[in-house]
């Protein structure tokens, strides 16, 4: 891909705006044993050898959605960049937050990874009750605000990220080039 100054400037601008408006919130329950729905693949594989797990939900809040909506009206190109930046920013803030949760934490395994069923979100919502951080679930199992994630974090098993669990593995631009999006 060519470098695009316009897009780079837009990314910088969007990240800057996000820092001002996003209200990052993270909530979790810690458990030493995995609840029933996590005892089958692909979760079981991810949790193998762990001494406990965090079941967590995190969000950037409703403000980011409102901005995306506004830009979709006034500047569609910016809306797309803002949407992507918001997703990346949520990942980044969640990683940072998890760094403070303790040592020996594995990477975050979200519902949807490795072919897991998004209906599993229901179990997570029953356990974590993320309504208290303003995250809700629609009847089609879609989380709102849209910049929200739900998943598990294994403790003490050193589970490592792998492209095979990724939701976009079949059409990933990085993979096509033989690269990875993570270290």
């Amino acid at each position, binding site marked *: *891909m*060519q470098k*695009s*100054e*316009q*897009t780079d400037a*837009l990314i910088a601008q969007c990240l800057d705006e996000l820092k001002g408006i996003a*209200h990052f*919130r993270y909530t979790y*329950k*810690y*458990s*030493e044993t995995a609840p029933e729905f996590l005892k089958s693949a692909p979760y079981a594989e991810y949790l193998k050898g762990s001494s*406990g797990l965090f079941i967590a939900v995190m969000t950037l*809040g*409703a*403000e980011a*959605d*409102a901005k*995306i*909506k*506004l830009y*979709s*009206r*006034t*500047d*569609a*190109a*910016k*809306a*797309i*960049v803002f*949407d992507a930046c918001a997703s990346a920013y949520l990942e980044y803030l969640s990683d940072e937050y998890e760094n403070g949760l303790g040592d020996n934490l594995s990477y975050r395994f979200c519902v949807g990874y490795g072919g897991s069923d*998004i*209906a599993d979100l229901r179990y997570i919502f029953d356990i974590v009750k993320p*309504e*208290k*951080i*303003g995250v*809700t*679930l*629609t*009847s*089609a*199992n*879609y989380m*709102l*605000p*849209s910049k929200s994630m739900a998943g598990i974090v294994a403790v003490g098993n050193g589970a490592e990220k792998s492209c095979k669990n990724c939701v976009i593995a079949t059409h990933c631009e990085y993979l096509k080039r033989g690269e990875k999006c993570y270290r």
Partner: protein
Amino acid sequence: MLPLNGVIVFDGGMGSELEKLGFTGSPEDLNIDRPEVIQAIHRSYSCADCIMTNTFGLNAIKYKGKYTIKELALKAVENARAAGKKVFFDIGPTGAMLQPLGTLSFDEAYSAFAEVVEITKDIVDGYVAETFSDLYEIKACILAIKEHSDKPVFATMTFDSSGRTLTGSTPELVANTLEGLGVDALGVNCSAGPKELEGVVMRLLKCSSVPVMVKPNRGLPVLKDGKTQYTLDIEEFDCYIKKFIANGVAIVGGCCGTTPEFIERISKYSGRKIKRRKVERATVINSATKLVNIDGVKICGERLNPTGKKKLKEALLNGDYDYLIDEAVSQAEAGADILDLNVGLPQLDEKKVMAEACKKIQEYVDLPLQIDSSDREAVEAGVRYYNGIPLINSVNGDGEVMDAIFPIAKKYGAVVLGLTMDKNGVPKTAKERFLIAERIVKRAEEYGISRNKIMIDTLVVTASAEQKLVKETVEALRLVKKLGVKTALGVSNVSFGLPNRGLLNKTFLTMAMTCGLNMPIMNPLDGEMVGAVKAFAVLSGEDINAEKYIGIFKDYAGAASALKPAETEHIAAANLYDCIKKGIKSQAAHLCKTELEEKDAMTVVNDILIAALQEVGRLYDEGTLYLPQLVASAEAAKCAFEVVTEKLPKGAAKKQKVMLATVKGDVHDIGKNIVKVVLQSYGYEVADLGKDVPPESVAEGYIKHKPDVIGLSALMTTTVKSMEETIRILRENGCDCPVFAGGAVLNEDIAKKISADYYTKDALGFVKVLEKLK
């Protein structure tokens, strides 16, 4: 309102007590499964004055257990009665996000709340709507309670560490809305510990005229030995509650983590004298996230009114809310503080359109609205579905009009604009207009509406027709200020029929502001008028140290600077082709006009616009351009297309009409929006039905818009079903036009399976197929 004789103490945590006893599942079911446990917890709180039922999650949307709502509600009240104290029915949120952020409608939320109130209205002592984080949802809840019961209503929301609710409302905004809706007490619960909530509590005390209620958690939870634990001790909790009461809090209790010992300790405050507070009564309106205090001068944008506006009229008649939204957004960006909304056209169902327009505009613009209609039902529809406290435009000195509108204003807490006229028309003199204003204020007070909720418009006459009366309008402003009300004027009316209207408008605006005008209803896109308001704020001392003025005009370099390109336009395009290719929207219209000076319109379309788009498409397909660049080009082309269309012979550039919708259940519509922009850039006419559109509405849209092609989008596996259903219903309704399916989870196979005619993987693919279909 409920008369409080002294401080009231409520009970403490229920969920945390159950957790301590090892109960995990549905707390609501325990009302029937283990009544003895629930009753024992209620009894342990009998030191409190009031007990709340164990019904936090009991509403038809949230509760998915084995009993009926009625069985549980009745049993829960019976259980709470075991403590021998007053019983308040606890209502928590639905756990679903309301539209427009989510999929739950206001009416659905309202019905769920109304159901539990209807069951319990005769057996409880009051209601507590608690732990709400969305202002719109708590409004639905309060209306449901008040429309089904005459028992006291206490309403509390949760705030985060930034001092806002989870949907971004400040304490001042929450207080203005809840007080407007007529609750008996308002406040904060859950959220965090008393220490973290202190700021919110103090702010609520400053602005709420009704009693303030505080039920904090037992501090912030900490993770200890793998368990969430609350660690704040009783001493500290008590210390804060004492401080809150000393500052005027009237109702206290505990939320998560607080135990009977905590409530026992604070029960000593029961009956204590409530400290009187002095609350300034300002004229304040608000949306869900923006509060506007109508003090100094605030601009009300006048452009959402079809009178004399052909395009808006057409848009309203066609149900084209996009046009309304664009008008709203542009006024907000130009500096309006409030937007007037009028949808009065004889051919329209004004009630329905007002409610819909209100919802749509609020989705994109956070400015408070002024609901402008002479139809009582349309006013009520607008005010009811409005998220916040709006202005109503208007009443006048006619008793019948006031009797129709004041009950609505009172019920929903709206501010009302009163026009100084009556059945006999607009009086000539300032004195007579003042007398009508006085009559309006008095009648409002009979309805329990205080003066801060009334604004007066002394009515502008046209200088060309009634030159001598212009000064009466201004003089009347000065007089009505003595009534302690804020004022408004539709200033642009003054210049009808005269040349250089802008100059007259600006001069009149300045005259009126000097005499106490608070809210000019005007065109915010007129930079000179907005400039006059900003300058007046400096000269009248409102804009302290001219900070806002300097912020706006710091780069001002004389009249020529108005033509200077904005900051985002630093990239220059050599010509229209280059401009489309680079995606510079702001220069597209101007460059298109330049091209049209030398070339005919059709040549501009084919040789420049389409050619540039095809080149951009090629670069995107080969992976040289990113998606945002493709979309920026499409937007630029769209702007140019609008210019060129005016020059084309009618029908010359006519392409197929495409109707787009994101199917029911899907609220993420960025993909559909990209398709829309790209289609428009190629000159296709697009009817956009929006997101989360039920199959029946898509069928209705087909009948109304008569499209040549339909595009449906779905993001998730769960919503592909709803796409299939949509196609089925379309066919049943005789739709024989091609249906395109797209979205993250779709592919050729799935599209075929659900009977779609075409699958395209992206916006460009859509265009390519369309071009072939011609």
